[in-house]
């Protein structure tokens, strides 16, 4: 029979939360099954059950038709189930080979047989068509290559026939994604069944055969990718029609908005060369480019998080010297970092704490006391107006979903009333329903007269929201497109432009 994995009626309850409620899905041999659902829909819990980290309260799991009891990660491995987690589980200081065979090294007594280890790794990598040397140190590889190592590691277990990938493309570039997809297809063709978790609709189109949707811990349905439209999938995920999903791009605002921020000749030691652009009131300026093109670096240099070696920043017609983020904030520039958890939030603290972070001066009472009640009221207002889904302003931010965490960061800057907001990958790791809300928020902000910079690696997002698009490549601006000129092709052409060509 061709069925590889069947899950029936799986339920799992945590104190106070029903994480999974009678979930079913099946995975066939030679199939890529997309598993989608908003954050909190239960995907991670389901994966943890399949990998033996959690025990289900009810339900059955069948592997190749036989009911199995996945009691631990080791058992999962023996059953042929391998998981590639969102966070990499590699040791950066070890080599590719050492990582792949960690704990299973070929040995003679206490000594590791390095030659044999590298030979085996080489054979495995060649077999999978992965172009890496066994002796390369993992920490020096790109994220995408590290992902390949993870995959190779998963498949180095002889029995592996079910591979579960949790948002594998969230941190890699478009080209790298294509390489990954080629690998996934070749695995599929040799009989491995793959469960692919992702939020990116266009990826599912490229790679998945069928899609299974979860919502609030419940099984919503499974469709063949060939006869389901994107908006249908989204509707299944969010439980309502999302008509705005395919709304047209914003009205092109005229050039009449005054220039709020002008950057000229921005250069840094490491990457940026002569970056110049202008940002107007009421506009969303998209920043497109490949990974490593220098978009985040530009943002960080503007706000003074990293030093610039040349160039000027003019805010509201006045040139200012930004020596650090505190100066940038004083001039009304707020930065919403790409990595929210590491650079944007205090995960252990509550919502009100985080919202107040950029506007503490406004909440200061004599003697350095903090007007905590007032700060909390402000937070409560934003919870309502931005529709942040949280039990209260006293809830720890760590427990919120990605979309709601992002809204907390937005609230932080709105509370500060910044004129210029720099969003770095505002929808990364955020599920589809919440994405729409973030998009609407960005539009509202622009309409309210804020000037918005949006750095994004998702072209559809850039195209949909931006009034103008700045395209970067290798640390330089290779072009600025109006909304009319910008489309996938024109942007990709500029984004892949070599600097030598520009110079010529």
């Amino acid at each position, binding site marked *: 029979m061709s069925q590889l994995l069947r899950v029936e009626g799986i339920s799992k309850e945590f104190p106070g939360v029903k994480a999974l409620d009678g979930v079913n899905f099946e995975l066939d041999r030679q199939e890529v099954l997309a598993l989608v659902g908003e954050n909190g829909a239960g995907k*991670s819990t389901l994966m943890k059950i399949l990998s033996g980290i959690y025990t289900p309260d009810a339900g059955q799991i069948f592997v190749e038709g036989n009911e199995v009891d996945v009691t631990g990660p080791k058992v999962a491995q023996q059953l042929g189930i391998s998981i590639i987690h969102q966070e990499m589980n590699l040791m950066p200081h070890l080599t590719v080979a050492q990582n792949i065979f960690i704990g299973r090294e070929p040995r003679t007594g206490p000594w590791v047989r390095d030659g044999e280890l590298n030979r085996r790794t080489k054979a495995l990598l060649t077999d999978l068509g992965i172009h890496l040397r066994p002796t390369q140190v993992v920490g020096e590889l790109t994220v995408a290559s590290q992902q390949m190592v993870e995959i190779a590691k998963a498949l180095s277990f002889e029995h592996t026939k079910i591979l579960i990938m949790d948002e594998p493309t969230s941190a890699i570039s478009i080209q790298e994604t294509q390489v990954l997809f080629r690998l996934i297809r070749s695995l599929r063709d040799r009989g491995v069944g793959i469960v692919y978790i992702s939020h990116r609709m266009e990826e599912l189109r490229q790679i998945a055969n069928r899609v299974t949707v979860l919502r609030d811990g419940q099984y919503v349905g499974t469709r063949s990718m060939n006869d389901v439209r994107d908006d249908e999938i989204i509707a299944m995920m969010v439980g309502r029609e999302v008509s705005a999903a395919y709304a047209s791009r914003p009205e092109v605002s005229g050039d009449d908005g005054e220039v709020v921020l002008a950057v000229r000749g921005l250069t840094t030691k490491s990457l940026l060369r002569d970056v110049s652009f202008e940002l107007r009131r009421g506009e969303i300026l998209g920043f497109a480019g490949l990974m490593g093109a220098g978009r985040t670096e530009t943002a960080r240099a503007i706000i003074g998080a990293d030093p610039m070696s040349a160039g000027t920043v003019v805010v509201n017609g006045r040139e200012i010297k930004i020596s*650090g983020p505190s100066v940038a904030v004083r001039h009304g520039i707020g930065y919403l970092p790409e990595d929210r958890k590491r650079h944007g*939030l205090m995960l252990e603290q509550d919502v009100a704490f985080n919202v107040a972070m950029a506007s503490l001066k406004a909440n200061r009472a004599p003697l350095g006391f903090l007007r905590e009640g007032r700060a909390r009221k402000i937070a409560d207002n934003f919870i309502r107006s931005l529709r942040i889904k949280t039990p209260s302003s006293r809830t720890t931010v760590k427990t919120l979903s990605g979309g709601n965490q992002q809204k907390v960061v937005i609230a932080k800057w709105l509370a500060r009333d910044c004129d210029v907001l720099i969003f770095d990958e505002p929808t990364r790791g955020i599920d589809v329903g919440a994405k729409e809300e973030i998009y609407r928020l960005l539009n509202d902000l622009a309409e309210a007269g804020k000037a918005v910079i949006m750095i994004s690696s998702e072209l559809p997002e850039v195209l949909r929201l931006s009034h103008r698009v700045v395209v970067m490549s290798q640390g330089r601006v290779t072009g600025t497109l109006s909304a009319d000129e910008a489309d996938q092709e024109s942007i990709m052409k500029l984004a892949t432009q070599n600097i030598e060509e520009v110079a010529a």
Partner: protein
Amino acid sequence: MTTPRAEEDLADARTQSPPAETVAAGGGGRGGRFAALGQGLQQLLAFGTLIALMIVFFIASPKFLTLTNISSILLSTAVIGILAVGTTFVIITGGIDLSLGTAMTLCSVVVGLMLSNAGLPLPVGILGGLAMGALIGFINGFNVAFLGLPPFIATLSMMLVCQGLALVLSGVKPIYFTGVEGFSKIALGEIIPRIPNAVLILFGLALVAGVILRKTILGRMTYAIGSNEEATRLSGINTRRWVLAIYTLAGVATGIAGIVLAARLNSAQPQLGVGYELQAIAAVIIGGTSLLGGRGSILGTIIGALIMSVLINGLRILAIQTEWQTVVVGLVVLVAVFADNLRKRRAEGGGRL
């Protein structure tokens, strides 16, 4: 290393005082105000441990719960407690201060030089001690915030510098305050009958520190920097200046501890001090403050300091050797950190869906 508590014996306790109520009020603010419920839990656990210990020792020896003994416990908590309250701030920022003990000694030596040797008026000597503490804290803060040194290294070197300076300045001899009118009253006088002033100073300081930590921008910054320094910086906050302020403030507490210790012993002992920092840090950790930063409370620290005093006092009443007392304190720290880890792991396992 001899346990610093050995010297605490020098001061005999003659006073009595009501225990629990004062303790609870001293912490300032209830636990878990904006941190998760977990912090309150940790404090509750520490408090429960304290009560349990007291019951156990009481059953073992009726001498334990006499008023004389309780006030002796409180008095012996004072110096470590004051150090611990100050360093709670540093630890919540994710830092550590190893110079506490010898910095305290240096402060008491400076006070001794000013009062005994130079014959300056009492208030001047006290201000001198506080200023010395502030200066040491300031230098620590500068090294950490502006030179980017890891707190461990910066304060380790400061620990050695202070130790050396204390010995040099004093000529490796104790400085006695016998001629200084009223100095020992700072610690042993009783403004409130039967409560030694040292205990009042501890609880007064704890109250002020608790309010600062819970209610002021400085306190907010302490938690913010410990939770995520980069995010704090990107929120437009000059984190360096705040780190400097926090270390300086903790330095003032060190100065207070130096004065109180000198007053209790009626002398500045230049060879004392090493080991106090570890006891203070242990008290902070037992009280549920995370070494990783971002989480902690003054109330917890006070309970932690009391647990250590009660433990040592109880073991002594049971006539257990000093050396073994140190071993037990070590194990308690281990258990406290383990309990904290357990709680954290449970919170992450179940809470994140």
